[in-house]
């Protein structure tokens, strides 16, 4: 494998590096302690601020999945034995994950094959050197989880790159509305939008993640529970609690801005289409 840049000499290695080197079993792939030290230094420099303490650095290093990190880096370096280990350990899991993401066999195989090419490094950098995606694995999570995440990213990119094809029959059936541009309407009461924004700002990040996943993304309780690694009932309870809290805050905010209680209730019943909502435009604008 190609030499990893190291900034430390052997004498400057922290004592725990030797322990980490043993844990990583890097000697199987011909990885030296110096190479591992260089990898660890690179990772800590990536995730920690420049002024991070030695304790923070050590904590980060110890939290890494060293054995998988070494395997990935050895694969990226072209070590055949490492590839043999990688394929034996992750091949079936990779295809299973691709099948779960693509939900269609041929697409899943195409997705997994495409990722294999990227992992092996079919693309070459300007200098002609192979660039393997595995070199970007840092061991923060499991290698399998990282592979799933990369697969998901590849799948999303693939879906986005596909032109949106609409059959002629579909266009005809859709009629004039199909081509109609979304109406840009003004809010019935600007205070409502302002109050909702304020109420959302008062919620915590995790509450907003819950609300966004539930209301905006339309995810199921099971999906949200998987994301947050909690039980579905917990998600359900928290969403109910957050919704109730938001409603109270919004009503209170509207009343603070001069609305009567009844007017605030009526404002809450406004047709959402009358609000200034342009999801597609927002997404396009964000991508641009």
């Amino acid at each position: 494998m190609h030499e990893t840049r190291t900034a430390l000499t052997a004498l400057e290695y922290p004592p725990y590096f030797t322990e980490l080197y043993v844990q990583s079993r890097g000697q199987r792939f011909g990885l030296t302690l110096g190479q591992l030290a260089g990898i660890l230094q690179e990772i800590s420099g990536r995730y920690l601020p420049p002024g991070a303490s030695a304790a923070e650095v050590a904590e980060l290093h110890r939290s890494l999945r060293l054995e998988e990190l070494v395997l990935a880096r050895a694969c990226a370096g072209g070590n055949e034995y490492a590839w043999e280990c990688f394929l034996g350990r992750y091949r079936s899991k990779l295809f299973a994950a691709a099948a779960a993401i693509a939900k269609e066999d041929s697409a899943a195989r195409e997705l997994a094959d495409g990722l294999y090419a990227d992992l092996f490094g079919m693309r070459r950098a300007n200098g002609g050197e192979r660039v393997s995606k595995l070199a970007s694995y840092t061991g923060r999570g499991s290698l399998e989880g990282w592979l799933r995440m990369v697969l998901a990213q590849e799948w999303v990119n693939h879906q986005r790159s596909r032109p949106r094809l609409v059959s002629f029959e579909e266009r005809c059936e859709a009629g004039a509305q199909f081509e109609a541009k979304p109406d840009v309407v003004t809010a019935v009461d600007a205070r409502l939008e302002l109050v909702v924004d304020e109420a959302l700002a008062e919620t915590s990040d995790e509450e907003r993640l819950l609300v966004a996943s539930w209301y905006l993304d339309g995810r199921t309780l099971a999906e949200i529970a998987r994301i947050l690694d909690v039980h579905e009932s917990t998600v359900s309870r928290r969403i109910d609690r957050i919704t109730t809290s938001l409603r109270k805050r919004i009503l209170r905010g509207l009343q603070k801005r001069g609305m009567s209680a009844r007017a605030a209730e009526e404002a809450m019943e406004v047709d959402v289409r009358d609000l200034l909502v342009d999801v597609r435009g927002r997404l396009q604008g964000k991508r641009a």
Partner: protein
Amino acid sequence: MAEMRDIVRSRLARKTSGISAHPDANLLAAFTESALAERERAGVVAHLAECADCRELVALASGAADAEPVVGARIASTGFRNWFREYRWIVSSAMACCVVAAVLVHYGEPPARVSFVSVSSKLAEPRIGDSLKTVPATPVPPAVAHKRKVEAVPSDKTQPPVVMASKKSVALDLLTQPPPAQPPPETALRVSRLEPPQADTNFPLSLVEPERAAAAPLSQSPRPAAAKQFGEQAALAGRAPSFAPRLQAAGPTSLRPVASDARILWSINASPDTVGKLRGVVERSRDAGQSWEAVPLSERVSFRAVATLGSDVWAGGSAAVLFHSADGGSRWAEIKIADENGSVSSDIVKIEVRGPHRLTVTTASGEVWISVDDGKHWARE
């Protein structure tokens, strides 16, 4: 709360601009595995709350994680609990199967269980009055017939081994009798037994020749499935080293030990070729019912009943025809059933051998004819 959903959704959708840099796949993967420090996790959660794209990635990857167990952080949770959760339906099915099997073993029994066992000849000679009993043949409910089972278990090697006779086979005989109008009301199916007779008072029993039975082995009465046809009667005969019969299953058939080791079973239309045919054919099996051979007695007669006692074999059927063989079926002679007042005209539907030289024949019209000299002379009962 419906309006809350729409309002919040609309405002959240507007907040997708101005989000921070996307965390890399390593951090997102670590987030899904709860492997991030609290500070980093908070940063990822804050980003996910604003970034629909990353939420989509995390949701896709998390959904794919369920396809297989995750290596690493979650591998610790792939213990017995996850194994049971994944395969609990198999465990439940297996338990249900075990319960059903236990119930079947306890309350059911195979359709025709037969065992031929040779035993010692030291068995004491049974006495007629000890255990033989005759009752009229009344239809026995299948459930009752299933439960009936007589067995004799030897206490040691010098005693007879287990001899089991499935009474279900007899019950099948009962059930496969001709319709009630055809057989006479006093039609009796026979089973002889040496064990306490009071245990099965409802079960059809018949007399057996104890002297000869004590000196001869018992053959069980396998009831091949092919023999379970309406209007059929089966006769079973067997040979084995000398031992006393514990039970002789009967029905329309009689079970008789003979003097040699060769076991011969007699039946009507028991082979697959003749089962279900209207014309009854006398058949015998020399291999415990595995295969059957037709005994060509008469082409014009449809046989309805066969009975044996020792080497004597009796077969009767249509037109009051009765055949007798005194040598185990090698040579046959047609017997005329008649007395001074007349002869039998209807079909013979039942033959009962009640002892040496003693024979009872029942016709379809309900007549019962008795002979006490091996069919030489007959008298209407």
